[in-house]
């Protein structure tokens, strides 16, 4: 293993992708039991929560499922009747906040990935340069990125720019480090194979080095996607008047526990969906890694 890894960094080694559904032995019955048990469990938790809020603990601290539901409804739809609610979902208000956060996240992801890939690849291939600045990179990497947020707000203001920069910075380091290692750990045997086939330098790069590093880039992006959301939301919580992070912090500032929970539920739904999408994309792109046992 390369010495660069002496410091524990969250490098996601490109591991085998999940086996495809078609190969998995059928376990329909077991799946159903699992699903039912989960539903029952969640129901039980909600019931206990509701009971506790009514009898045991002041709802000021823990709100209650009923209240969270009401706040969610107020956040997501306009109108009182179920019909109105259905027609007006999602409310322009919710869309407004979601769009803001998404925009920060996507732009942060794009800029961070681009910069991380390019810099990681260049430094990974230019051995001397890479060795030279490796300690600096590790130093910056070890710094909790959260600590940078106030600086970015100072530099880029409280608008969308500071959030994008913050999110992009987090993404950059994750993608950069994976690409850096990927560009260094190219299988020399594969390089030899194409060189004997008469490949020139450019062809060695395009046929072996870049694709091999790309699998590491994917692994880095996979890791970075949830963090880009974290970056956007955290920056919003520090200074903003819109976005999911703003919803959380403004509800908290008004001691509106139900509102905090409602915003958290939205955030959870968003992040679960995003991770699901990334998982899908990964199993398509890294199909060749499927190991049949």
């Amino acid at each position, binding site marked *: 293993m390369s010495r660069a890894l002496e410091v524990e960094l969250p490098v996601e080694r490109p591991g085998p992708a999940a086996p495809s559904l078609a190969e998995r032995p059928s376990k329909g019955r077991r799946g159903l039991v699992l699903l039912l048990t989960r539903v029952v469990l969640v129901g039980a938790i909600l019931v206990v929560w509701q009971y506790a809020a009514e009898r045991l603990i002041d709802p000021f601290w823990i709100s209650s499922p009923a209240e969270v539901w009401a706040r969610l409804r107020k956040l997501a739809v306009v109108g009182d009747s179920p019909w109105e609610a259905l027609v007006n979902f999602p409310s322009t208000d919710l869309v407004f906040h979601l769009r803001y956060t998404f925009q920060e996240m996507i732009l942060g992801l794009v800029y961070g990935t681009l910069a991380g890939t390019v810099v990681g690849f260049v430094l990974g291939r230019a051995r001397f340069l890479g060795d030279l600045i490796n300690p600096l990179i590790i130093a910056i990497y070890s710094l909790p990125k959260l600590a940078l947020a106030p600086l970015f707000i100072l530099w880029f203001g409280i608008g969308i720019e500071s959030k994008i920069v913050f999110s992009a910075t987090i993404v950059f380091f994750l993608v950069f480090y994976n690409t850096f290692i990927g560009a260094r750990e190219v299988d020399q*045997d594969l390089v030899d194979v194409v060189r*004997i*086939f008469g490949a020139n330098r450019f062809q060695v790069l395009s046929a072996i080095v870049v*694709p091999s590093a790309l*699998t590491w880039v994917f692994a880095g992006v996979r890791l970075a996607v949830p963090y880009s959301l974290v970056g956007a939301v955290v920056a919003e919580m520090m200074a903003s008047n819109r976005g999911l992070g703003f919803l959380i912090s403004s509800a908290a500032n008004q001691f509106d526990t139900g509102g905090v929970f409602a915003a958290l539920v939205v955030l959870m739904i968003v992040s679960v969906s995003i991770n699901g999408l990334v998982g899908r994309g990964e199993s398509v792109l890294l199909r*060749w*890694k499927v*190991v049949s046992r």
Partner: protein
Amino acid sequence: MSQVDRHLSGQASLATGAAPPARLGGAPSAGATIEFVGVAKRFWKGDTPVDAIGHVELVVRPGEFLGIVGPSGCGKSTLLNLAAGLMLPTAGEVRYQGHLVRDVNTRVGYMTQKDSLVPWRTVESNIALPLEIRGLRGRRKRELVAHYVELVGLKGFERHFPSELSGGMRKRVGLARTLVNDPETLLMDEPFGALDAQLRLLMHEETLRIWEHSRKTIIFVTHDLAEAVLLADRVVVISARPGRVKLIKDIDLPRPRDVARVRFDPRFGRLFEELWAALGEDVRRGDENR
């Protein structure tokens, strides 16, 4: 005449089935394809030197089928690596058609001991790799790839990734990938080790057919002495590490050879025994060195 056939003119094709012209024994010895002149190779494992090759003098004649056998770790793969220009000798020189090998030797096709398939490319795209590097594309590329997929019996597996194949199948992809490039010299490092007996026999037939149709020089490294005697014009026995040429034996079995039957030729038995004796001493010595 299809484009495949044109590409293969001078090469075997399973489809034609025409009897190969007999080519008897030794090849014309005008010059040499590969020469190892006083070659030694030392590796360093930390501070301790590992002498993989002690001193090898060997001339590989144009068009010959040369078998190389020797105990494990005696430097057989290293010899091929040197011939392919992937490493330079510590002493002596390696010449290819008279020219000093100092860089990667693109005139050879090298089937390495490890299959070295590109893991993110499918079977067909692995086989197409050398063609793509040569700038060949379109129908001609597809036809050649399809032909070699069939030649190594992998029809139906074109879209599989290496991780989805068995060891023997991967070896065959490697063979197809080497052959599709039509190199003038073939370096093969235990190419059929992972195959079952039947498939091995087929591959032997195919290798001989390709060799008999073309003017290729083949260096064939194997652990299996019978396989070497079966296929080769000459068999070289390398001593235990540090490797030296211990014995070079002309295999005067008639050609074309019937790989299924040549084992029962009494001459085969005599050759095998003589080589086995030379090899045996070293296999024992090789074990003591561990």
